[in-house]
């Protein structure tokens, strides 16, 4: 199945639908053909929805953006890119957009759409926040108390069957600040968040799950479990370097010029 992606809205609020998989369901496993169909694509979180056209209310389908690599791809269509899943048997999706800025926008958005990216970024910002409140002499706020309304209803009494939920005090957690001293009090507020982040299984998606590969290169080998990148800054640096190198290389091949400075995606 091959798509053309139209202009998109990156909307933050996710639509939700519970999904039940019947055991006997099968998807059509047609071969990848090169005919494109025009679709309106909407990126929400780690999900890429597509519908027949913008005005259409119903969504045709959704692609889960986990375990896939974003690749520039060779195509009759200009400004093409693809989503390649590392698991065998999963189809590749190809996209083509109107112009180079759109292509750049889409690739950038898709690279950072996966759940793991946001998890790492959030952890990084949380550390920066704790650092900043410490430097300013403020007590850090407890994000849980701010957001609990959204998801679980108004926090009320802690009674079973009261139809509401709130948290008990999060357990204390020993985390070091940049001076290497543990700061118990700093962590009370966000202990549960940090705990959730640190509880991650050591096996994650392949570290380079957003690898942008040169044309004619195979997708990253399946089942490549590398050590998780714990540091968002480091992961970001790697993405940036890879993307710059590979796009520059692609440009050189395509245009026959040594224009290695042509950054399609500026990652700062």
């Amino acid at each position, binding site marked *: 199945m091959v798509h053309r992606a139209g202009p998109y809205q990156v909307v933050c*609020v996710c639509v*939700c639908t519970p999904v039940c998989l019947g055991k006997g369901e099968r998807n059509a496993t047609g071969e990848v053909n090169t005919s494109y169909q025009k679709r309106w694509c909407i990126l929400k979180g780690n999900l890429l929805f597509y519908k027949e056209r913008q005005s259409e209310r119903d969504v045709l389908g*959704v692609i*889960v953006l986990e375990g896939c690599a974003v690749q520039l791809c060779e195509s009759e269509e200009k400004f093409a890119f693809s989503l390649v899943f590392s698991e065998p048997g999963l189809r590749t999706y190809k996209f083509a957009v109107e112009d180079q800025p759109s292509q750049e926008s889409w690739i950038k958005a898709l690279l950072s759409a996966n759940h793991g990216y946001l998890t790492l970024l*959030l952890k990084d*910002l949380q550390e920066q926040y704790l650092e900043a409140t410490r430097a*300013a002499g403020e007590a850090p706020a407890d994000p849980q108390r*701010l*957001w609990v309304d959204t998801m679980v209803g108004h926090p009320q009494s802690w009674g079973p069957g009261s139809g509401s939920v709130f948290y008990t005090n999060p357990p204390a957690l020993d985390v070091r600040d940049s001076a290497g001293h543990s700061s118990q009090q700093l962590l009370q507020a966000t202990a549960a968040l940090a705990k*959730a982040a640190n509880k991650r299984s050591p096996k994650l998606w392949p570290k380079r799950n957003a690898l942008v590969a040169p044309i004619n290169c195979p997708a990253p080998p399946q089942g490549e479990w590398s050590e998780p990148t714990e540091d968002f800054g480091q992961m970001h640096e790697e993405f940036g370097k890879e993307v710059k190198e590979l796009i520059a290389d692609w440009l050189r091949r395509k245009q026959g010029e040594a224009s290695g400075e042509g950054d399609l995606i500026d990652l700062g």
Partner: protein
Amino acid sequence: MRFNEKELVSLSRQPSERAAELGMRGPKKGDVVKKRLVKLIVNFLFYFRTDEEEPVGALLLEQCRVEREDDLAFSIAFLDEAERKYLFECDTQEQCLDWIDSIIKASYEFMRKNLIFYRTEIHRLTGKDPLEQYGISDETRFQVNTGLPPLPAPPT
């Protein structure tokens, strides 16, 4: 609307944030509690019959409400069908609390809101936008104002 089933099955095989055998009851009238292996992977909750390779189903944990139902049980309901609840029965109170906690925090939307909070606060405290160094300060999904209800003011 169709999810690609193979993609979901592939996702269901990835390492989970949390996995356990729980009692699970579907939202339909007449549904009974059944033992299921429940796995939380990114923002999906997969459930399997014991010893089966492929999940029976998957819940996307966005736009949903998680509620404590009693000492050992919690429910998940989706905002567009608030009366239809999926019920989960745990072995201990602690397990119940842990699941609720993990499910809420797995939501992309939850993470995004926290991120926006931290971004705003860091900017307030330091004068710098922490997303600039990563070149993602223009990404729509990280904007402070996206038409959603305003954030509550941080406590003073």
